[in-house]
Structures are given as C-alpha cells and as structure tokens.
C-alpha cells in the first residue's frame, strides 16, 4: 500500500524485536469468536488515477455548468486563490488542536486573528475559535443563554433558517428546553407585536437571524431593547456574513451565532463550514468552544495559548459548557485568510456588489408579469419572489435551461406557496441576471398552461 512506509522485511525485523512470530500474535487479546474471518467487502484498492476518474465521474453527475440562484444559508462568492494556496500548507492542515503551544504558534496566532476579525465584523467583544457550523452554533448559543439566565424558555423567530431550528429542537429535547416560535410580519421581519406578547420574564432568550431566512434585514438594536427590558438575551444568527461589509453589526445582540461559509468556503454540498459564537466579555466563562489567548513565554516574548479550558470537556467532563472537541479550525483559517484578503475596503466593496446585483435582479423580476417581491423589508442579497404560478413548475422550466432558479419556500413554509427564495451575489454577471429574468418572464407567461 503506497501510503504505508514499511517493507515486509522491516515488518519482520520489527516483529522479531518485539518477540513475535507473526503480527497475528499482537491481536491475541481479541477473542476468536468475534474475529472477522473474511476480507472486508469494500471496493478498492484503486490507483490514484482511478480515484480521480471515480470522483470526476461523480462530479459530472451533478450540476456543474448550471447557473444557480441558490442561497438559503450557503452562498457562492469569489474565493481568492490565496485561500486554498495557504490553507493547503501541510503545517496547517496536518496539525491538530494546538495543545502544545510551543510548536503550534501558527495555528494559535491564526485563531487569535480569527477571533479578532469576528469581533470586528460582528461588533462583539469576544469570539470563540469555532463551532461545527451555524446550525449547531444556534443551539450552543441557546444553551449558553439558558446557562447565563437560568431560565428555560426560548423564543425563536420563524424567519430563522428552518434547518437550524430543527437542529435546535433536537438539542432542546435533551436539555429540556422550551422552544416557542416567533412569527414574522408582513414585512418579512420579526413580528414585533407577537414578540411583545410572547416575551416574558421566564424567557431566557430570543433568537433571530439577520438578514433572516427570507433575506430581510432585522432591526437588531430595536429587538435588543425589547429583550433587555425583560432581561432576556438577544441571540442573533448570521448566515450571510458578507452582509456585514455594509450592515450595521449586531453589536446590541448578546450572542451572535455566525455561519462563516460565505467567507471563503466552497458550498461543497453542505460542508465543511464553520460556526462561531461572539458575545460579551462578561459571558466568557459560559461560552462553549475553544479560545486562544495572548500571553508571554518564559523569556517575555508574545505567544498564544488555548485558554479558559476549564469550560471544556477534557477538563470538566460532564460539567463542561459543551461536549465539543474537534471543531472546524481549518475552515476558520480559511475565513481568516478570506477576511484578510478582502480587508476593510474589500468587504465593503464585496457587500456593495451583492447589494447592487440583488437589487438589480429584484427590480427586473418585479417587472415580470406574474412575479413580485413578496416582502417589503430591506434585503441584502436574497429575496422572496412571489409567483402567480407554482414555484416547482417554474423551477422545472428553468432547470431545462440550466438555471437553478431558487428554493421553493413551501417546503419549509406551507403558508408560503408559489414563492421562491432567490439569491444573487457578485458572481452573477449582468448577462446571467438578464438571462434569468428572461427565463422567468417566459416561464410565467407560459405558466397558466403549466400543469398547476
């Protein structure tokens, strides 16, 4: 096997040194009754070219070449090539958690920079080293809020990513949390009247997303005031952090649960991505996940270490703030490089392009007979297109033209029939957008003749 650095002669010599006649002897402790007496029925071995062929064949069975307007928590942005070039350095990607800081300063300093960038981006005071993704960052943030507040009731906006809410329900069951849904208003934003009704002094936290699942920007500052009146914490999920190049940061939220995929990670059919929590310094000891901190070495030089580990499972076991161990460090590194490449100017320019392109597309689509923009709230790069025909018919029609038109919302929101969640980013050229609009126009014109 080409990865194994040993010849049979060396194996023999090693066995001799150990004092074994055969390698079988080393497995003597495994009772015969449970030994596998046949070769595994798995494919392979394949040579390197065959492996490439196999995966290239699979890639061709997917949708490459399609023009896509899919967002909903996963965004396609230009990824500067330096991101992969640097993250591919073996010293980064073949290291593990920097338990031994003296030979892990590269990872540690990068995490420290990641934490800082996330704070700057979100307007929060501290951030952790990463969590699995946005969908698990949400329950972690809720559990954290429950821990801080010692209350068990949590209001969650219906406009928060449906799959995130599903994950939250799963986690909540184990923890015995009480999750209640907060409806959205006609504008697409959180229904403030409902919030006023539902919020009470047993409420640990209110969890919203901004821009929310419909692309609508929430008024975080106002919602935060509401929450704080009841001593509830405001949790703000951020799904599309590129928006923070322009949008007022959720500084007034108490915890930000952010999905970093948009910051330099490919869609990759759903992962790996990177979650992160940002919050106020005073909550640090309730925070789950690793933290890198600055310190000095015995000669007074600046260095970085993992710190406040008494929150973590390897020290506190069943009393830890979370069971997380392996996180998404390499993804965090990639977003760190991405944010550094775009930098202060570029993050704004990138956000501006998304805004301009999405608004161009929305305004052109709004002119199509049989289509309108469903919600009135301001949006960033994603919006809901309300159709006069079934969304599936239109999707189908456009797929034939190699366009993936968006995500039919009825799947997640039975009340939102004939509506499509459309995402437009800087990667779409105007010609793409015009082709899309023309296709939608044609499909809408045909639609009455469609099967629904």
């Amino acid at each position, binding site marked *: 096997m080409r990865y194994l650095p040993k010849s049979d002669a060396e194996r023999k010599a090693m066995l001799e040194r150990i004092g074994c006649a055969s390698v079988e002897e080393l497995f003597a*402790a495994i009772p015969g009754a449970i030994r596998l007496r046949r070769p595994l029925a798995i*494919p392979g071995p394949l040579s390197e070219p065959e492996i490439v062929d196999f995966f290239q064949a699979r890639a061709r069975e997917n949708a490459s070449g399609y023009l896509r307007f*899919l967002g909903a928590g996963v965004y396609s942005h230009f990824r500067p090539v330096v991101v992969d070039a640097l993250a591919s350095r073996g010293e980064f990607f073949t290291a593990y958690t920097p338990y031994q800081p003296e030979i892990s300063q590269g990872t540690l300093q990068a995490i420290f920079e990641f934490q800082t960038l996330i704070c700057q981006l979100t307007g929060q005071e501290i951030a952790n080293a990463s969590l*699995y993704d946005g969908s698990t960052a949400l329950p972690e943030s809720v559990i954290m809020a429950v821990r801080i507040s010692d209350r068990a009731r949590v209001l969650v906006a219906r406009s928060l990513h449906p799959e995130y809410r599903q994950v939250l329900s799963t986690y909540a069951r184990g923890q015995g949390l009480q999750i209640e849904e907060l409806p959205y208003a006609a504008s697409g934003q959180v229904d403030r009247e409902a919030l006023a009704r539902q919020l009470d002094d047993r409420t640990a936290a209110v969890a919203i997303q901004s821009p929310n699942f419909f692309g609508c920007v929430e008024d975080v500052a106002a919602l935060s005031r509401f929450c704080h009146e009841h001593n509830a914490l405001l949790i703000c999920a951020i799904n599309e952090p590129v928006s923070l190049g322009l*949008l007022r940061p959720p500084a007034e939220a108490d915890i930000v649960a952010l999905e970093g995929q948009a910051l330099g990670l490919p869609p990759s059919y759903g992962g790996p991505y990177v979650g992160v929590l940002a919050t106020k310094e005073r909550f640090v000891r309730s925070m789950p996940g690793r933290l*890198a901190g600055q*310190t000095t070495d015995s000669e007074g030089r600046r260095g970085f270490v993992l710190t406040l580990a008494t929150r973590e499972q390897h020290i506190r076991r069943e*009393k830890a703030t979370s069971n997380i161990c*392996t996180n998404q460090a390499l993804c965090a590194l990639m977003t760190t490089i991405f944010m550094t490449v775009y930098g*202060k100017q570029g993050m704004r320019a990138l956000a501006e392009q998304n805004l301009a392109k999405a608004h161009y597309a929305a305004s052109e689509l709004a002119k199509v007979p049989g289509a309108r923009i469903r919600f009135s709230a301001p949006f960033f790069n994603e919006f809901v297109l309300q159709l006069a025909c079934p969304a599936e018919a239109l999707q189908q029609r456009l797929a034939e033209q190699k366009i993936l038109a968006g995500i039919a919302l009825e799947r997640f929101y039975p009340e939102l029939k004939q509506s499509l969640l459309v995402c437009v980013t800087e990667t779409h050229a105007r010609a793409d957008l015009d082709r899309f609009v023309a296709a939608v126009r044609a499909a809408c014109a045909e639609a009455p003749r469609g099967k629904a």
Partner: protein
Amino acid sequence: MGDSTAKARPHVTPGEGLIFEKSSPGKHAYSLPPLDVPEVQPEEVLGAGFVRREIAGFPEVSEIEIIRHFTRLSTWNYGVDTGMYPLGSCTMKYNPRINEVVARLEGLASEHPYQPTELAQGCLKILRALEKALLEITGMDAITLQPAAGAHGELTGILMVQAYLTAKGNPRQLVLIPDSAHGTNPATAAMAGYNVAPVKSNRGGQVDLDALRQLMTENVAALMITNPNTLGIFEERITDIAEIVHARGGVLYLDGANLNALAGVTRPGDFGADIVHLNLHKTFSTPHGGGGPGAGPVAVKKFLEPFLPLPVLQESPEGRLRWNFERPQSIGRVRAFYGNFGMHVRALAYILAHGPEGILQVTRDAVLNSNYIRKGLEGVYDLPYPSPTLHETVFSDKRQARFGVRTMDIAKRLMDYGFHPYTVAFPLIVPGAMMIEPTESECKEELDLFIEALRAIAHEAETHPDLVKTAPHTTRVRRLDEVTANRKPILRWQPAPRPSAGPAPAPEPAD
C-alpha cells in the same frame, strides 16, 4: 542542543506580528470585476440606520503580505507532514494529497446542498458508497453521516438511545462511562440530559465486570465504552459486557475513536455494539486541520434505524438516490444539510485507495508500530497496565517523577528532539500519563529516532532534570505562561496599547 537531539536542528525563521499590526490605510489585496449593474446607495435601499460606516479595525494589507504572513505562521506549526505526531487517541496519520485534490473538484466543491437531488446524484453516490463501506467495516445495519465530529456523533447516538428508550416508555436517567473514557463521553451524556456514573477499571485496565453488573440497573440508558479503550487495551470481555448491558435493556454505545486498531480484524457490530461513532479524521485520514473539520458518522443496529437523524439517504430499485425526510421516529436533525461532505469525499478516497487488504494492513501496521515503541520503552518508562495493547500504549512518568520530571516536561523536551509530544491530558486513571499512538504512517527509522529520543530524555531526567523541566529550548517560543492567560484573558487584538491590568476590551461601537 547537543548531538543527542540528532533529529532536530535549529533554523532561522522570520518573526511575525499580528496581521493587524501590518495594516495601513489604503493597502488592499482584493479585486472584483467592475460592477456591471447600476450602483445602488446602501443608505437608500437598506435605510441609513442599517448601514455601518466601516468595519473598524479590519486589516488593510496587500496580497504579498498575506502570503508571507500565513506562510511564516505555518512554519511555526508542527504537522504530520513535518514528522511523527504520536498524539494518543488522535490517530495522526498521513493525510493523502489525492484526497485534497478530489475534494476540491469542480462539480463537487461547487455543489449547493439545495440543488435538486436529480442534479446531485454524484454527491449522493459518494455518500452512499461511503455509507456502505463504513457499514461493512463496522458490521452495523444503518448509518448517518450527518455529525460533524466525534463528539457530535456521540450526541447523535445518545439522543437516539433516548428516543429509542422513550419510545419504549422510559428514557432512563443514567449513562455509564468507564473511568478511562475521553472527556467528550460524559460531556455528551450531560448534554443529552443524562446523569453520568463512572465504571471503574480493573487492574488489567479493563472494565471491571462486577462493578458494571452492580451499576447496570434498569435506570441505565447506555454504557458508553471505548474499545480498545484509551489505554490501547482491547476489552476482552466485550461480549460479556454487551450481555450485561443488554440484559437490563440498556444500549451499548461504542466510541469508535480507536477503530484504527480494529478495522478488518473485528467489527463493533460483531462484538455487541448497538451504536458506534467513527472519527473520519482519525481512522479515515481526513486532515485534522489544526483542530478540525472532522466528521463523526454514527452507525447503528437495525432496531435503532428509525431514530436516525433526518434526512436519510434512500436508494430506489433503479439506483437513484434521494433524501428521505418522512421518518416520524427520527431524533430530528443534528446539523443543517448533510454533514461535512468534503470530509466524506476524502474518507471515501482513502477507503478506495486501500481496499480490503489495505485497510487490514493499516490496522496491522498501526498495532505493530505501537508495540514496537512499547518494546523500545519498556523498562525505561513505567507501564501502569501491563496488558497487551493494540494501536497505542500509555506509559506514565512515575520513574521520572522521582527526579521532579513530569509527563508534561518530557513532552516539551520531545520537541527539542524534533517530535510532536504524545497526549498528556488523559486517560485520567493514569497519573502522569504518556499516551503514545504512532499510527501506521511511521517508518521504522522515525520510530527508532523516537524511541531513542525518549530513552535519551529518560536519561536526562536523571542526570539533568532541569534541562527537561525547562524544555523546550529550541522552539520559537519557550514555555508559555498559561496561568496568566487564564487569569487575565486577552482574547482579541486591540488597536490601542491596552493596560496589562486585565480584560477590559472597549465595547466596539456599532457605528
């Protein structure tokens, strides 16, 4: 460093500040095509109150500075690519380069989780192929690839136990965990709402069956066991253990972190496990990435299949694949989308590269390497549990402690010899643990150097204990002050020179 540290040599590397310290207004590294649609005024379309002025503090640097910054940072890391990384329980094996290539292919990395399944058959076939291979390797009946890491898999598994027992009428309250277990096991049980009761190990370093029998009541939901356990010792009575657990209606959860000792030799499904999580970043070579991403698939026996997270992959008779969401008994989702797909690609590539004989050879070599080290260090370091070990061996610092040299000192000194240290943090049942897992990826030369290094350090511990206690001596930074880091945490860079008095970052205005 004298000649004794033969493997290592010092080398000059340029120092490097924080990226924020290199920033200067006006520099930039990004580029975008010119905007080809009408510009919009953010304040107009979003409302002035929703627009920020700037991202205060964000760096402004050029591309070459970014290349140098991260290149330099990388050189202060140690990785598997640098040399032996015998971090016990972490299975730091070679991360094949071809896996990185295929995971980045256009048509895989570019695919969106919400594209129609008809246009994602390639992705789904990869997932299905991986599922099948993992089921065969574990001897289980059904599987989810959704969990993002081992601990996430543990939570998934324990929530399934809970759902299963709830469906049977009583979720029960207790999870039993051997005292040698990894910290994630009790943390997971707690996260799922269970109380934890430790099961003590016997002198052979294995689960004490009498203790288990006593603890295993009808209030116990599951036993979370690791096999081979964290001492590297195979639980020889595993089928008896399973019987005890099953007899009381409990579920046997297997932490599969140590599958590298078993694959091809024996299967969890064949020795009584009802649930097993795998760490693809351990056994199946997906890179550890400085801490992640990982992937923690969970495989189960038939009776637990209805409880698997949503959605599950379903194959039609014609071989078309789709996601099945109609699963009323499911615990629900544990993660958005379908898990860390990029890691699944890599793990499948690893399995395809090896095939059946290859996987078996990996297991054999991993166990051979570990026993070779054990042989080389026996008599030099204390071996608290003398039972045979498989893929890893846990020594202790007992002999060296007499000279005031502890496991952490020895670990640090290993760096001077050019090696990454072993695991020091656990198993907790071994005071001063030295948990060494070489994996199959080490050649004899590297093992010999490692053994030599640890033997030399043992000698130093007797003759020059201070040399060891103040190690490392050759690294970019010396021992770091973790106590102050904990007491006065500095968790982010701040532009102004901050008083060292304590943690008081000025709250960032939302401008």
